[in-house]
């Protein structure tokens, strides 16, 4: 069974929580005790229906204020796939949460209200999905029941969005007319919309092909941990543990080690005493190499004819998370794959308006939830690829050295 991770975005009003509640309920992931609790709360709050949105309420502060303050992860499975939903709130700290949810997502699910069409927020969410290289995007036109299940409304919204999305880097775009409240086109075809002959939402999530989304071409193995047991049985064992970040590694492959530039061959690939004949992303394995060369955490194992760029100058689109604005000239701790160093912000080229894609080149700083393009100088060489090509070797986080907070996330542009 394959796993699919998707991020949902939307505000309280467009029915996102109801949609997720519906997916969980219709795929039988909601248990009786959870449903009882929701039915009880619905009655207490005076709803005349079971408010499925309550299923996804989390913390006390959220229930009290009727808002969602953080990314919540939810799980469901059907016989064909396991799903992880990163459920991101639409309003408070929207960019920060959406970026976090999208960073690991295969697919972004964006909701619009059929009565209002594509609004600023839907555009913002699709821009973020595109910047984070989420390959598949589903636009659910929700509340079709409130527009009499009218095909024209759906067609107009779809056209409108398709035109806008042309500017974005999204390879696969799907439109589905739904009513989360009534369950239309969620897990079964709606009798109310006979004109719609596309897949239901669940069918689409179950059958979408994601096998080609991972980079299986550029072999990348950031060394995470060196295993040297020095026990009687494994006296001379020396293995390089890590998670494959790209391509395929096989025993016998010739590999290049960065930063030393030395080459050797893979003697074996171990996974808990089992020798495996191929390692692909995102497997966590241990490589044994034929020659005894000095390799430590933060080094990169790749192929001699296909190496990432070794550089101390990085250009990136970054998203800023902190209340203290980004400082040009500021120094931050940087974590890229398994390597930590320090980074100096040399330049901020522009701040990008995620609603309009327009660039503000006069902005001297980035505030919380802003995105912009920066140039960094790093104290040690990093082994990088362009983010669009590899989400693992193309991403980094920035950490404030004083507070230790994670203050920014970067996607490398100019590798």
């Amino acid at each position, binding site marked *: 069974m394959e796993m699919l991770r998707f991020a949902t975005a939307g505000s309280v009003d467009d029915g996102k929580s109801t949609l997720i509640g519906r997916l969980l309920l219709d795929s039988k992931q909601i248990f009786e005790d959870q449903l009882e609790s929701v039915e009880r709360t619905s009655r207490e709050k005076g709803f005349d229906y079971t408010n499925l949105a309550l299923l996804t309420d989390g913390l006390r502060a959220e229930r009290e204020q009727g808002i969602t303050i953080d990314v919540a992860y939810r799980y469901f499975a059907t016989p064909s796939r396991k799903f992880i939903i990163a459920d991101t709130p639409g309003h408070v700290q929207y960019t920060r949460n959406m970026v976090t949810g999208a960073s690991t997502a295969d697919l972004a699910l964006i909701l619009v209200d059929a009565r209002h069409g594509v609004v600023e927020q839907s555009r913002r969410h699709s821009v973020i999905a595109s910047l984070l290289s989420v390959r598949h995007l589903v636009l659910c036109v929700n509340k079709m029941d409130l527009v009499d299940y009218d095909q024209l409304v759906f067609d107009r919204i779809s056209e409108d969005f398709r035109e806008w999305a042309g500017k974005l880097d999204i390879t696969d775009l799907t439109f589905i007319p739904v009513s989360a409240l009534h369950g239309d086109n969620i897990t079964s075809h709606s009798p109310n919309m006979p004109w719609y002959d596309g897949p239901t939402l669940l069918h689409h999530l179950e059958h979408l092909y994601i096998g080609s989304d991972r980079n299986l071409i550029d072999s990348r193995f950031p060394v995470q941990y060196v295993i040297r047991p020095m026990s009687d049985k494994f006296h001379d064992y020396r293995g390089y543990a890590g998670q494959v970040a790209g391509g395929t590694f096989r025993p016998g492959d010739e590999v290049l080690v960065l930063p030393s530039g030395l080459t050797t061959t893979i003697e074996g690939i171990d996974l808990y005493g089992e020798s495996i004949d191929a390692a692909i992303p995102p497997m966590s394995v241990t490589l044994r190499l034929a020659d005894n060369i000095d390799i430590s955490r933060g080094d990169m194992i790749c192929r001699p004819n296909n190496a990432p760029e070794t550089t101390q100058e990085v250009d990136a689109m970054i998203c800023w998370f902190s209340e203290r604005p980004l400082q040009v000239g500021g120094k931050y701790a940087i974590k890229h794959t398994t390597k930590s160093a320090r980074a100096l912000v040399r330049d901020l080229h522009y701040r990008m308006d995620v609603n309009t894609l327009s660039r503000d080149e006069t902005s001297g700083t980035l505030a919380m939830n802003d995105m912009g393009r920066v140039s960094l100088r790093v104290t040690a060489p990093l082994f990088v690829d362009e983010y669009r090509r590899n*989400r693992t070797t193309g991403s980094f986080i920035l950490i404030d050295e004083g507070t230790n907070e994670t203050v920014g996330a970067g996607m490398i542009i100019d590798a």
Partner: protein
Amino acid sequence: MTDTTISHLDALEAESIHIMREVAAEFERPVLLFSGGKDSALMLKLAEKAFWPGRLPFPLMHVDTGHNFDEVLEFRDSRAAELGVPLVIASVQKSIDEGRVHEETGPKASRNRLQSVTLLDAITEHGFDAVFGGGRRDEDKARAKERVFSFRDDFGQWDPKNQRPELWNLYNARIRKGEQIRVFPISNWTEMDVWQYIERENIELPSIYFAHKRQVFRRDGMLLALTRHVSLLPGEELEETTVRFRTVGDATLTGAVESTAATAEAIIVEVAASRITERGATRGDDKFNEAAMEDRKKEGYF
């Protein structure tokens, strides 16, 4: 495994192993909480895999309420001995004896809430800076929002409104002295995933997870086992029935479910058909109010 995709269990395993290796590489004194329960048995297996053929680069710790099932304690000790890993036992009884906490009284008294103090004391005493826990996000509303690397201040408190953003597989391990990170490598596993993996990997578990005959009685809608830690209240009656445990916490609070599932395979079938959550069915500690877990986490609980 086909050429380009890996199964959900392999993907979850890979993610958990990656997290464990990050912790071993970036912290001075990590420790793995090991109660002998199924989630911690899974954690131990993943840790073995992460560092094979080396030994675990961290000790194990159990916060012992003194109200545990004997079968689980035996299992805990034998697994630790088998792996040759040091096991730290932090005792709630000792915290009570030393006057660090006051025991609740009455027939339904529980030591559950006292655990946080014992845990935090042990973390301070041993200087642990990262503590692995087997919490899963599908267990509870508060857990659903918690990070894999969950920052705790020098009081061990979780601040849900002020969590560090967590992107890709990049974890921020930076802390000041006295602060700690609670690490949840199996955040993304569900109860079903855990059982499927236990079956696939043939992971050994305490016997009480599998169907067996036992003396039980009904209290607050749960089936409690008669142990030396629990006594009957007026009106409660013992019955012998075939049960298993879905979770194995404090014996005073952990309910059994009627079941004839004697193997991991049979349990998977039951889990698939079950209509009640794991904690809802069997954990008195989470029933006290809607926000029980959230409150306990803010006090330093896992």
